[in-house]
């Protein structure tokens, strides 16, 4: 039994939690989310390079919340999501445990303060490769960028897998579903797709922790991560602010500084 399985078994057996949300083996060797509720099933848990999903998305699902206190197998982005959800008053202190798998031992984080301390030791910046890709894209001409996104968005099905996979898209009634008046067009035509994708990106500005699940979820492969990373980068450069590093801080766009840049305002 791996250290992770052992820890999960222990937590369930002692009733410290009612469910362990982790990764199990799925189709074709891929990982999938599993909800372990009995100590005897802890052996189903796996953790390796195929375990990519941000499981914090399930913390916001009523069906999962009903199961009771959860221990969540986390990746770095999952921890930042937990802090961001806490900062947005969506989850309460002591409502979950975070299990950080590593080769040696399983680190168990029980408080937001402990998660904050753990996250503080991680590099929450965009990676060098991510920055380079952003730079390459920004260096393209305006028309080239427009054509690129028009082609990408023309393939969008409006299946909302990006929204469903995002742990921070937790509104019970999304703006696209408000129809008196209709704000975002329902049909997946080119204009509707552009407006939907702009809105999705903007509503995550200053909140997105760059877990990448929207892009992974997109069945037609639209690189949504580029939009998110652009906003992550601008929010940091403009306001020296990062999402998901504190359970208490304000979102970048819910606050301001009197001396925010305004060279573009007449």
């Amino acid at each position, binding site marked *: 039994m791996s250290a992770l399985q052992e820890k999960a078994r222990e937590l369930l057996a002692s009733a410290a939690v009612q469910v362990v949300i982790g990764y199990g083996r799925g189709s074709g060797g891929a990982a999938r989310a599993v909800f372990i509720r009995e100590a005897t099933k802890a052996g189903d848990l796996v953790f390796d390079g195929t375990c990519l999903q941000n499981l914090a998305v399930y913390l916001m699902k009523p069906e999962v919340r009903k199961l009771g206190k959860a221990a969540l197998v986390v990746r770095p982005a999952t921890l930042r999501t937990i802090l961001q959800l806490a900062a947005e008053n969506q989850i309460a202190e002591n409502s979950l445990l975070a299990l950080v798998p590593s080769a040696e031992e399983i680190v168990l984080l029980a408080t937001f303060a402990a998660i904050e301390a753990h996250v503080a030791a991680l590099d929450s910046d965009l990676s060098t490769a991510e920055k380079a890709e952003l730079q390459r894209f920004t260096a393209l001409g305006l028309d080239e960028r*427009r054509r690129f996104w028009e082609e990408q968005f023309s393939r969008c099905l409006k299946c909302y897998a990006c929204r469903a996979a995002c742990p921070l898209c937790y509104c019970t009634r999304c703006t696209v579903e408000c129809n008196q008046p209709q704000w975002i067009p329902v049909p997946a035509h080119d*204009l509707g797709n552009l407006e939907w994708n702009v809105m999705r990106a903007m509503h995550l500005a200053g909140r997105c922790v760059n877990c990448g699940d929207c892009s992974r979820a997109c069945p037609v492969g639209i690189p949504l991560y580029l939009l998110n990373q652009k906003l992550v980068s601008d929010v940091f450069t403009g306001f020296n602010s990062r999402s998901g590093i504190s359970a208490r801080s304000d979102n970048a766009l819910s606050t301001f500084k009197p001396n925010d840049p305004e060279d573009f305002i007449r």
Partner: protein
Amino acid sequence: MPDFEPKIVAFVCNWCTYAGADLTGTSRMKYSPQVAIIRFPCTGRIDFMLLLKAFASGADGIIVSGCHPNDCHYSSGNFHARRRWIVFRGLLDFLGIDVRRVQFSWVSAAEGAKWAQLVNETAEHIRGLGPFTGYQRLRGLGVE
């Protein structure tokens, strides 16, 4: 494009810029008639999506204007709006949407002359850029 008269939509706050534009009129200053003013309680209420709706409805240029920093009727609406504009401008540019078509400004209730100048110069600028066909052509695309 000598015959092109741009359509400009101005999203303004009630307390400063709208009053400023009113002053322009009561001072009998003439300014470009291409602008359609839409009054909002505060720049903080001007959702970014309204700008896209204006473009989709045929606007060639947009003005967004409100109270100068520290003058907001609700004390911080314009500060919040400013952050949103910074992020939104960056995103538009990233998407290949020409941000030169959106002019942000602070115009107070006492700045009737500034409003006239802002509208005139923006109209001239947009006239130079031509109609925003790049955006308007999206309407109707993707419908079989």
